[in-house]
């Protein structure tokens, strides 16, 4: 099956381990990817400071138009921020004809137009609904043997549309983890926000949010936290020492991408495919112990 | 009639596994003298029923005693026609399902129930319906020609009956006729009121006779047999009717009682005045006749306020939203401010609220502090709860007070009585308001010739008393129903539904009365109370206590029963000190004999005996339900169902106690403000009566704790085991009744 992979800016830098692991895992599952030619940034959730709503819509419509022009594949946006920006604009353009006309009149500057024929998908959606847990289980050669994982869904990967999972109590990530023979722990804060795009400028306030999330995961017995968003991963992983300093805690829990866990469970190379060496809090030992290496 | 009894024991549903059936049969034939006694593994199946039918045919059996499931189920299966007596003994729910199988106590319980059931069957007489000599009328009188009254008349006419509609004004229509538009539910657009069409339809219908400028001067008689005297345009006309619907509607709460400028500032008006003004054309300022631009609506003007109308009238939020739409329609630039406590868009009107928001109406949650007039404009000071500030809303042209609905039945004056010293809420003279709990106080509408007063008894706030959730349209006068806003506040859509409901009830009443069967809640019951007048002492207890005002009085104080007004609760039977009131299948003596049929073991056997008198409507099904859930309790309790706890006669206490029964439980419905008694007053009367039981107990030198009254709702089934077992503990502590074996 062919998809556009819109990996976005973060996956080229801070989220490189996401992209590195996602590709071999998906390919092993029979997925093929195309890049949207000359794509631009989605605007993420903070551009509003400089741009109005229409400009941000145009930003995303351009990507959609470029994709539509090339082929009729679904777009996979692994970064939750890209996903939400793109799916939102897509919905709005599909549902609101006058907006579509307005956006198209602007896209016409470069001879582009978007007709609304593309579907925007999150990677969890595709893994769960197009591939399915049965298929995934068949690829598991190194089961995670009950590794206790807190599946952190975050906000923007399911909300607000809830196209493939509940917006109030999502379960898809836990089901995918179960397919790897991991044991998802109960984790009420799995949809509590980590601070997202304003973490950096509002760090003082947001550290508390992350502390709550980490605390919830750890106190429910998690040995590791999985994520599906480069921003979540960054916010949960990079500031644990600051949180420990500020709140007197002692968090030191690895944060990995769901796709990294999949690569490990698929028996792939821990460095080349699972890209574990990119993680700042090393997950290798825990994972090796889980798969019995 | 020569009685021939037969007992059928069902052994299905676990009964056969729990009990020794053969010894039960032996008991019946040898000790109780029942000539025919059979068992069957599936009595309610076709084969089992055929077995009974065959005996009726071949053996001439006319008294059928069925020992099996609860009488609350399969009553249709075990119905062999009105001339056959059927007595049900509950061996399934109240023995097999709530007691351990094959135990001595379980068997003894079943034996007692057999004895009690056979005793009752023995005492029961075949039933004959009451049919009056006069001719029955099936026409229906409707008082009030507003939307509810007119709709009820049309519903009745559509059902092929005749309706007689009495309206006090010179034209039909009521409030509906004075309105501009209605909200369509579910909301789309405002629609026409349809009042003219409705009035026309009513006037043109051959089955509806309309009296305008008319009132009801007198209603005498009873359901099926009412005579109504109508004074119309100065003439008096008589109509015979079978039942009555009161749809006299509401009046707006008196806004001058509110401290909101009404009556002082000209541009402060009520929502009713606003509606009438809009219906006539332009919305203008009463002070200078100029068109309005900014309007402020005051919601809950007097409503939900203990000082004024303590309840929500449920229509006023919608009415204000609607009137705000009129204002916008007249001038799209106008601003509507709506100051509210809570916006309550009942029914399917949420979309209408959204529409008002879309229109840009400004909603302010809070309360009014002050309304001032200066320079021809009004300014309104408000405590804005959501802003947390006191705000001043200026440049207002018109203030509309959304006042609530007062039922037309509300007594002009709430009766006050001298309260016992120290009563909370009493005034300086020690007087306190009481519930106008009889038909003497409500405003004139029906003028009934009833011993208990000319109008429907009202409850709190002056609405006619009926259990408005469980028994809508019913009142405390049989065959007289209420519909529309006199029953409870409502908007037009609901009033129409209400009217249809009351019309159906009224039709049922005409039918049932003419057939001599009871109405709700003992619908279909043929039995009725009979008075053995020779022994009556004219004590008037029955005429006073009947919750439905069924019994009138002659000048000497003799009771004059009206069987078609009767609901067959037996309250009069319980009230009568001479025990002269009885039903063919329910009487003081009959229950007394059942009590006597119980075998009381000797003291040294240490098997106490308790009788529980249980209300058939709530407590009895609660016990069945507990048994269905296989809950268990003491095997020493015998349940005796009663029609209503109000029918208990204190002589039963003496009967039981002198026989050596160790304790008595009385399980009835909740009473008070939110009563659940199907007969309104029954359980309350029972408790009052039991208050006097200590005399009886004193006489016997017994402890008062041996008799206990408890309120049980049908949902309390899970409490049954605890209630019974706790009472058994009390009995254990008190020790055995010394009268055992006398």
């Amino acid at each position, binding site marked *: 099956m062919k998809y556009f992979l819109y990996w976005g*800016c973060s996956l080229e830098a801070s989220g490189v381990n996401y992209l590195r692991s996602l590709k071999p895992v998906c390919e092993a599952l029979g997925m093929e990817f195309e890049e949207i030619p000359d794509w631009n*940034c989605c605007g993420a959730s903070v551009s509003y400071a400089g741009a109005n709503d229409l400009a941000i819509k145009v930003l995303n419509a351009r990507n959609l138009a470029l994709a539509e022009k090339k082929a009729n594949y679904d777009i996979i946006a692994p970064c939750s921020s890209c996903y939400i920006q793109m799916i939102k604009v897509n919905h709005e353009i599909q549902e609101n004809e006058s907006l579509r006309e307005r956006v198209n009149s602007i896209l016409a*500057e470069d001879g582009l137009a978007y007709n609304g024929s593309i579907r925007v998908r999150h990677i969890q959606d595709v893994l769960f609904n197009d591939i399915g847990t049965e298929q995934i289980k068949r690829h598991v050669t190194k089961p995670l043997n009950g590794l206790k994982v807190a599946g952190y869904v975050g906000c923007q990967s399911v909300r607000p549309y809830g196209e493939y999972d509940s917006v109030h109590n999502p379960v898809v990530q836990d089901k995918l983890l179960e397919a790897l023979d991991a044991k998802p722990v109960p984790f009420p804060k799995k949809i509590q926000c980590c601070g997202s795009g304003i973490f950096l400028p509002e760090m003082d306030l947001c550290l508390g949010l992350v502390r709550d999330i980490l605390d919830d995961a750890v106190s429910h017995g998690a040995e590791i936290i999985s994520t599906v968003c480069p921003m979540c991963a960054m916010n949960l992983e*990079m500031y644990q020492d600051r949180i420990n300093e500020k709140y007197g805690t002692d968090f030191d829990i690895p944060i990995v991408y769901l796709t990294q866990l999949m690569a490990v469970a698929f028996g792939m190379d821990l460095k080349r495919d699972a890209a574990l060496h990119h993680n700042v809090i090393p997950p290798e030992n825990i994972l090796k112990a889980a798969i019995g290496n | 009639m020569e009685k021939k009894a037969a007992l059928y024991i069902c052994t299905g549903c676990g009964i056969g596994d729990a009990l020794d059936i053969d010894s039960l049969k032996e008991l019946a034939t040898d000790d109780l003298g029942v000539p025919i006694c059979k068992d069957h593994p599936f009595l309610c199946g076709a084969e089992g029923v055929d077995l009974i039918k065959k005996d009726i045919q071949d053996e001439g059996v006319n008294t059928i005693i069925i020992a099996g499931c609860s009488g609350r189920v399969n009553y249709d299966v075990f119905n062999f026609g009105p001339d056959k007596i059927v007595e049900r003994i509950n061996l399934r729910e109240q023995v097999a399902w709530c007691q351990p199988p094959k135990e001595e106590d379980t068997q003894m319980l079943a034996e007692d129930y057999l004895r009690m059931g056979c005793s009752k069957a023995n005492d029961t007489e075949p039933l004959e319906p009451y049919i009056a000599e006069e001719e029955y009328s099936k026409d229906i009188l409707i008082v009030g020609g507003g939307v509810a009254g007119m709709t009820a008349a049309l519903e009745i006419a559509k059902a092929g009956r005749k309706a007689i509609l009495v309206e006090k004004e010179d034209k039909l229509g009521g409030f509906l006729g004075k309105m501009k538009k209605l909200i369509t539910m579910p909301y789309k657009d405002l629609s026409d009121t349809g009042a003219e069409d409705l009035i026309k339809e009513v006037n043109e219908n051959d089955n509806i006779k309309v009296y305008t400028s008319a009132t009801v001067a007198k209603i005498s008689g009873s359901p099926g047999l009412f005579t109504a005297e109508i004074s119309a345009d100065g003439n008096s006309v008589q109509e015979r009717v079978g039942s009555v619907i009161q749809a006299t509607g509401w009046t707006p709460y008196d806004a001058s009682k509110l401290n909101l400028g009404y009556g002082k500032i000209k541009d402060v008006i009520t929502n009713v005045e606003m509606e009438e003004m809009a219906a006539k054309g332009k919305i203008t300022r009463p002070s200078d006749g100029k068109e309005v631009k900014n309007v402020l609506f005051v919601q809950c003007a007097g409503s939900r306020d203990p000082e004024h109308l303590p309840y929500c009238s449920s229509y006023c939020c919608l009415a204000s939203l609607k009137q705000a739409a009129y204002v916008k329609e007249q001038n799209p630039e106008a601003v509507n401010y709506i100051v509210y406590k809570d916006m309550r868009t009942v029914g399917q009107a949420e979309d209408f609220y959204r529409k008002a928001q879309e229109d840009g109406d400004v909603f302010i949650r809070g309360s009014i502090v002050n309304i001032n007039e200066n320079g021809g404009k009004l300014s309104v000071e408000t405590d804005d709860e959501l802003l947390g500030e006191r705000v001043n809303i200026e440049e207002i042209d018109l203030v509309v007070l959304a006042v609530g609905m007062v039922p037309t039945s509300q007594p002009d004056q709430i009766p006050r009585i001298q309260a016992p010293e120290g009563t909370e809420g009493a005034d300086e003279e020690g007087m306190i308001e009481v519930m106008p709990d009889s038909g003497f106080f409500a405003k004139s509408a029906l003028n009934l010739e009833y011993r208990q007063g000319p109008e429907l008894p009202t409850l709190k706030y002056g609405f006619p008393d009926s259990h408005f959730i469980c028994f809508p349209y019913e009142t405390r006068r049989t065959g007289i129903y209420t519909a529309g806003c006199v029953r409870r506040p409502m908007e037009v859509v609901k009033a129409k539904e209400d009217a249809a409901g009351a019309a159906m009830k009224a039709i049922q009443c005409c039918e049932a009365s003419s057939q001599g069967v009871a109405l709700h809640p003992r619908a279909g019951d043929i039995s009725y109370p009979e008075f053995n007048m020779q022994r009556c002492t004219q004590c008037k207890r029955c005429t006073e206590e009947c919750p439905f005002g069924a019994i009138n009085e002659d000048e000497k104080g003799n009771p004059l029963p009206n069987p078609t007004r009767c609901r067959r609760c037996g309250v009069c039977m319980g009230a009568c000190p001479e025990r002269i009131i009885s039903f063919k299948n329910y009487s003081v003596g009959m229950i007394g004999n059942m009590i006597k049929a119980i075998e009381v073991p000797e003291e040294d056997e240490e098997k106490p005996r308790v009788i529980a008198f249980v209300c058939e409507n709530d407590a009895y099904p609660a016990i069945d339900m507990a048994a269905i859930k296989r809950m268990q309790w003491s095997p020493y309790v015998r349940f005796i169902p009663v029609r209503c706890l109000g029918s208990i006669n204190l002589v039963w206490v003496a009967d039981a106690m002198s026989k050596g029964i160790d304790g008595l439980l009385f399980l009835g419905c909740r009473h008070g403000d939110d009563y659940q008694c199907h007969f309104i007053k029954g359980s309350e009367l029972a408790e009052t009566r039991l208050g006097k039981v200590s005399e009886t107990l004193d006489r016997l030198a017994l402890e008062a704790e041996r008799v206990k009254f408890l309120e049980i709702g049908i949902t309390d089934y899970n409490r049954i085991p605890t209630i019974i077992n706790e009472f058994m503990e009390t009995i254990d502590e008190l020790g055995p009744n010394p009268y055992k074996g006398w």
Partner: protein
Amino acid sequence: METNTSYDPSFAREVFENVDSGEEIKMCMQCGMCAASCPLREHMDYPPRQIFSMIRAGKRDMVLNANSIMMCTSCYTCQVRCPRGIPVIDVMHGLAHYAISKGILTRKDTAVFGREFWQQIYKTGRIDEKDLSRRYFFADGIITGIKKSLQMARMGIIMLLHGRMKILPEKKIKGIKSLRSMLDKAMQTGKGGSEV
């Protein structure tokens, strides 16, 4: 309740007309679900519900200076819970954009960060995280910038060591010229004030 203010509908009109998604607040029924859902609610002076109430009352300065409009983490919790289906986030972002374009920078760091973010998209079409942080830290001048970035330096080095920072700066996308003219046009014709 002390302050005595008047209701003034003109600010509400301004918001409906000029703020992205501003007209959506008409449907707010003041239930407070959004306020209860917001992750940073404890730090807000006025939660979303109250902001909407103040708009109706005409409290222009208080609304545009409220810290909350710039504290939205875009988590969508309020939005999925709002019983009236109001896109609360879009309104908050719209208000923030409107305030910033009027030169009000109540949460300066967030405003500067967001603006730098946008500038970079405008310049190259994509985001270079490293460059973005550098610009963000130095937006206030060299000295503060050095202080701030020293605090973050350890993290930067760690990221670099783990290969999670790009060494080469982001190149412009090919269609940058036409992208810019598109964005210019959108900024001019869209709601919410224009400023690039």
